[in-house]
């Protein structure tokens, strides 16, 4: 089987229906490798900024990437914000920390970014990101003033744009051939995914690739989306459309290719995420693992997936989202080459493998360039934490 297809051949093959549930062939061997850096950072205090500055230097510096460019930084403010993990703050468990966002914005500005737009589609709301941030007792100005020309946009809906931007999946897609997103994802020259180091109930992990999932507008892909055209306002979550295919996206958007495909989230979500990362490529992936949570942001009440606020004290960044997530998985004590049936992908396919198949990047650590301390020195074993909590619960 020929595997080293040119892009033209690949597109032609996809057009003939070669890509359906899983590619009969893969672009894995043609996928680009990446440069990833890992750093210890125990707190969000004074050590954070120099650590991040050094990490970006290890990636070759931000100047070449962002100078004179418009940059979109997709942060992770997902989940129902009124539901915290006990008294722990959202930024210490499930959300990108405001200081990591602020430091990123500052360093992007320092490297010459012309305009920086912080973007996110928070759960089921059209509120401005400034309002979402205020509701968590953060100060929007801490981010807006971190560099020149910084702005926020809630990408759950049309926002400040006049129309949605269409992103087609190279090769034709696995589930959807393309996606309609807020204009901010097209306006940017450089796209940054600023994620949190987390597990996920449906996809095993949620890192820089899964973070892009939150770019999809609720007005098209939400449970309350318009049937024919996008709704004006976002209502509901994305589960009805994306997790379980209970309803279609608004008809104005590209529709599912094959309705006989499985409807379980463990099949659908990894493919949708890989498609999104192929359609809207990530140029810089940053993963905040200073403080976070085990057990996924929504564990669906599973006693086998206990949640706990933890302090791995690590940051990860890279120029390729598949490679960066592979390193992050290793830091979490998982095998990045794992696939369905092996933790963390007990009930799902690996979005990393699917991303590799779509030619986004490679998950084999030996093929990527990794800077910083050896991963073995920064491992924070999520399985071990889970076992410890379960054992303690068993003891009563």
């Amino acid at each position, binding site marked *: 089987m020929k595997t080293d297809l040119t892009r033209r051949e690949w597109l032609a093959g996809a057009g003939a229906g070669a890509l359906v549930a899983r590619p009969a062939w893969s672009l894995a061997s043609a996928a680009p490798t990446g440069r990833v850096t890992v750093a210890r950072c125990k707190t969000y205090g004074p050590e954070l900024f120099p650590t991040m500055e050094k990490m970006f230097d290890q990636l070759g510096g931000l100047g070449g990437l962002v100078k004179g460019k418009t940059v979109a930084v997709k942060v992770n403010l997902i989940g129902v914000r*009124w539901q*915290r993990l006990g*008294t722990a703050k959202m930024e210490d468990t499930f959300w990108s920390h405001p200081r990591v966002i602020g430091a990123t914005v500052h360093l992007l500005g320092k490297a010459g970014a012309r305009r920086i737009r912080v973007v996110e589609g928070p759960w089921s709301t059209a509120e*401005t990101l400034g*309002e979402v941030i205020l509701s968590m007792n*953060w100060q929007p100005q801490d981010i807006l003033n971190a560099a020149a020309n910084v702005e926020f946009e809630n990408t759950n809906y049309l*926002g400040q744009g006049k129309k949605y931007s269409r992103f087609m999946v190279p090769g034709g897609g696995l589930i959807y051939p393309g996606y309609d997103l807020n204009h901010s994802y097209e306006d940017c020259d450089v796209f940054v995914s600023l994620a949190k180091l987390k597990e996920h109930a449906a996809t095993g992990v949620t890192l820089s690739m899964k973070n892009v999932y939150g770019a999809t507008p609720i007005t098209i892909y939400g449970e309350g989306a318009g049937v024919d055209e996008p709704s004006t306002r976002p209502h*509901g979550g994305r589960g009805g459309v994306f997790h379980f295919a209970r309803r279609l996206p608004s008809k104005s958007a590209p529709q599912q290719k094959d309705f006989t495909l499985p409807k379980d989230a463990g099949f659908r979500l990894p493919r949708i995420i890989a498609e999104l990362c192929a359609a809207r490529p990530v140029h810089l992936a940053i993963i905040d693992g200073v403080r976070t949570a085990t057990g996924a942001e929504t564990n669906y009440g599973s006693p086998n997936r206990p949640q706990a606020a933890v302090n791995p004290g690590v940051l990860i960044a890279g120029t390729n989202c598949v490679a960066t997530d592979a390193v992050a998985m290793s830091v979490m004590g998982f095998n990045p080459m794992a696939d369905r049936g092996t933790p963390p992908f007990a009930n799902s396919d690996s979005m990393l493998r699917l991303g590799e198949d779509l030619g986004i990047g490679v998950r084999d650590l030996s093929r990527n360039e990794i800077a910083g301390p050896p991963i073995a020195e920064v491992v924070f074993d999520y399985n071990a934490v889970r076992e410890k909590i379960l054992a303690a619960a068993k003891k009563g």
Partner: protein
Amino acid sequence: MDSALNLPWVDSNGAVLHIARALAPGKVAWIGFDPPREGKLAAESYLLAVADAASYGAKWVISLDDQLRADLTAGQPAAPDTWKKIIAVLAFFEQHKLAGTYQPTGPLLVVSNFVGPDWDVGEEALNLLPRIRQPFQVMARSRAAGASFAGLQAIFYVDREPPEPGLRQKLIAFANGGGILFVPSKWPNPEGAPAPAEPYLLFSLRALGKGRLAVCKHDQPDPYDMVADIQNIMSHRNDLLRLYNAPSMNFLYETSAQGRKEVIHMLNYSRRPASDGPLFYVKEPHRSARLVSPEIASPADLQWVPQEGGGAELSVPRISVYGAIEMEK
């Protein structure tokens, strides 16, 4: 479950009791409703019915389900226990008669006659405002012209009929002085000049002196979107309280006549404790805070945890049905 809020629907008489209190201030409302005819209710359902009314200063005309009545008559062992619990919670509220002297407080005032179609809009707004955790006050339109609007951030004038000239003048003066006045689409000849606003908002904004006039764009707006936009325009920057980890809970925020004491009534409509206790953010921490509840033997002091961004948080033990945080400045 409400997909917009990701919060469960709750079955409360709070909105009606708010309106009753506003239309007949100083009087005790009695509310009568029967339990479902079939099935046997848990004791907690009775406790909730008592607490839901009592929190708003009202009384429930106790009505027992058929099974409980039969069990009491037949002397079934569990039945007196349920009855004793009902009596105990009634006694608790007798001992904590706050509602007579305390009044609901919050930066938003809802003004209406609550008549005809305005009842529907007003009642639904009062149902939804607690679900989005927005503290508010309610006033009968007939009393608004003579009332003080001092300390308010916003007023929501509900009625389709424009206010009488004197009230309109007073409402506009409130906005001119820095407040936000929310009005329905029927507001004739809106004052002020158009001001920029987020495109999704159901209200068009007009600059008015130091404040704003927000005119609804639709004749029949979605009630949830309407109250959500009222909160969005008011901004979370001004939140007095925020409630976390209590999806099935509503709260009622009240203040004493002198303003030195405040109470937060917490009603848990699931009738069982959540996995975490409720967590409150309070913008202006008080000197003391304690939890009172028929579910605990004696009041429990609560600790203020100062927040880096200002304000403080109060972590409250888990409650099944009702508790109140009593705060003193």
